[in-house]
């Protein structure tokens, strides 16, 4: 029986920029699964540990990722990290948390933007002029969904799909475990269309057909409808997944880049269940944000 006692009607939408409430940054313990928790150190150590870990398996022998998961080593403000001297850290209206870069490649830990794109992302045009699409109740998209908590992975024993459910705005990702032909480029979707395969103990997810209408983080970092994302999930220990996502988009980046963090199992006593989060139905704040002059995004600056 679910012990969660507080039930609310449709969740309120996240407030807009000027009134932005800092998203709760997950705790960052010093060690997870025996590895340090700075993202690059985690990335190297966790993958090393995973090589000698035999994960729990489904009845058909596949690594079993099923259960409820919460991200660690993440913050929502910028994948490039937030330095202590960032003006929003002390700004009472913004209240950004200091945080490490989630980027593990390239070595400078920054998004390898082409020059024009760097002026759109990174608190540029997107951030100054547009409403974060997540504020208008769109999906957080990929890979931003993987740091929204909580999520649930289901693996039907027919081994033909993995279903990743996210409580955040009731999102879901269907991962077809086969190598069916890709869908035509003119089909675009909010979370992309995903195909998965097993690579040893890793689940590899390849996703394309994004509409490019989502932001990667609160800073307005972005990709276009030409993006392709490759994710790898690998268990490090029974309660920890190493998660990485490599993002390619030759329209706006000079090379692919990779983020990495951890997903830890929810161990609420008595069990856990995802609740419905009906964002749009409960939204009261979008008119405020719009009155401040922010435009609906839909890829405006790059389309």
């Amino acid at each position, binding site marked *: *029986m*679910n012990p*969660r006692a507080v*039930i609310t*009607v*449709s969740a309120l939408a996240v407030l807009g920029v000027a009134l932005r409430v800092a998203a709760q940054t997950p705790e960052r313990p010093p060690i997870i699964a025996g590895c340090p928790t700075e993202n690059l150190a985690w990335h190297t150590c966790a993958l090393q540990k995973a090589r000698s870990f035999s994960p729990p398996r489904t*009845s*058909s022998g596949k690594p079993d990722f*099923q259960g409820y998961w919460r991200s660690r080593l993440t913050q929502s403000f910028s994948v490039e990290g937030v330095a202590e001297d960032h003006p929003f850290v002390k700004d009472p209206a913004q209240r950004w948390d200091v945080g490490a870069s989630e980027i593990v490649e390239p070595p400078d830990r920054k998004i390898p933007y082409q020059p024009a794109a760097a002026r759109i992302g990174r608190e540029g045009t997107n951030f100054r002029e547009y409403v974060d699409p997540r504020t*208008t*109740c*769109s*999906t957080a998209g990929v890979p931003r969904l993987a740091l929204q908590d909580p999520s649930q992975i*289901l*693996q*039907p*024993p*027919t081994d*033909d*799909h993995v*279903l990743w*459910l996210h409580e955040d*705005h*009731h*999102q*879901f990702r*269907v991962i*077809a475990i086969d190598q*069916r*032909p890709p*869908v035509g480029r003119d*089909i675009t*979707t*909010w*979370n992309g*269309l995903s195909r998965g395969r097993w690579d040893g103990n890793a689940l590899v997810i390849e996703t394309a057909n994004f509409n490019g*209408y989502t932001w990667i983080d609160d800073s307005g970092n972005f990709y*276009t*409808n*030409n993006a392709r994302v490759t994710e790898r999930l690998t268990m490090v220990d029974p309660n920890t997944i190493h998660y990485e996502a490599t993002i390619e988009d030759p*329209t706006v980046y000079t090379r692919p880049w990779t983020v990495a963090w951890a997903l830890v199992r929810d161990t609420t006593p008595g*069990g856990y*269940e*995802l*609740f*419905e989060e*009906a964002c*749009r*139905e409960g939204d009261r704040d979008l008119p405020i944000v719009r009155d401040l002059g922010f*435009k*609906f*995004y*839909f890829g*405006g600056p*790059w*389309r």
Partner: protein
Amino acid sequence: MRHGFPGSILIAALVSLSAVTAAGQTSAIPRMPDGRPNLQGIWQVLVPAAWEIQDHSPRLGVPGGQGVVEGNDLPYQPWALKRKQENLANRATADPESKGYLPGVPRIMYMPFPFQIFQTPTHLAMTFEYAQGVRLVYTNGTPHPKGPIQWWLGDSRGKWDGDTLVVDVVHFTDQTWLDRAGNFHSEALHLVERYTMTGPDHINYEATIEDSKVFTRPWKMSMVLYRRKEPNVRLLDYVPGLLMEEEIGERERRKTNQPRTGP
């Protein structure tokens, strides 16, 4: 030359006949490793119940429909019948669908968009192209959480009755309708759904609707879910709220004559 069937053909015929159950249904449905019917796949209704669940003649833009309601009668209480008429008259703005909201249950089941079923021994998930809705049916024996709770798609707990999945759904808001014709319910809505595969590509979907604040007695609707069989068929998304915003964004862009530079 002997007349009549050779013995081996006769035996084969008897075997295939014996596969038909007493109920007349073929047992040639796909099954999960645990023997349960495998309801997985992409499904969609063909009836135009989303417009109106009762018998209705066509209007411009609205296909005529043979209703999905047993007996074609919706047993409204007198106050509720008046409310339904008001809803119908005001539907262009009063229908929650016009705001891009989740359409509720059972309406999301017969929106003219596909949905996909995933099944494990403990869960059956339905993911909807329409408004990215998700219904997670717990088949692990757990009870509904304690209310009061008002969810747009309710809370679903299922169990098997032979080869039929029976799903009990409660904890609704009163903000959703049953169709575009103003048929509605209250937060007291209680649904019992029955999903029965009648063959590998068809599910018979039946829902008993009980709502003591709106109707004088329970009533039933039923329809067929058809498997989408196109090769490589995928669930896409149709998020009406965001599509409306995209239109607004386009109008704004045109008004301010912003140049559009393509990739």
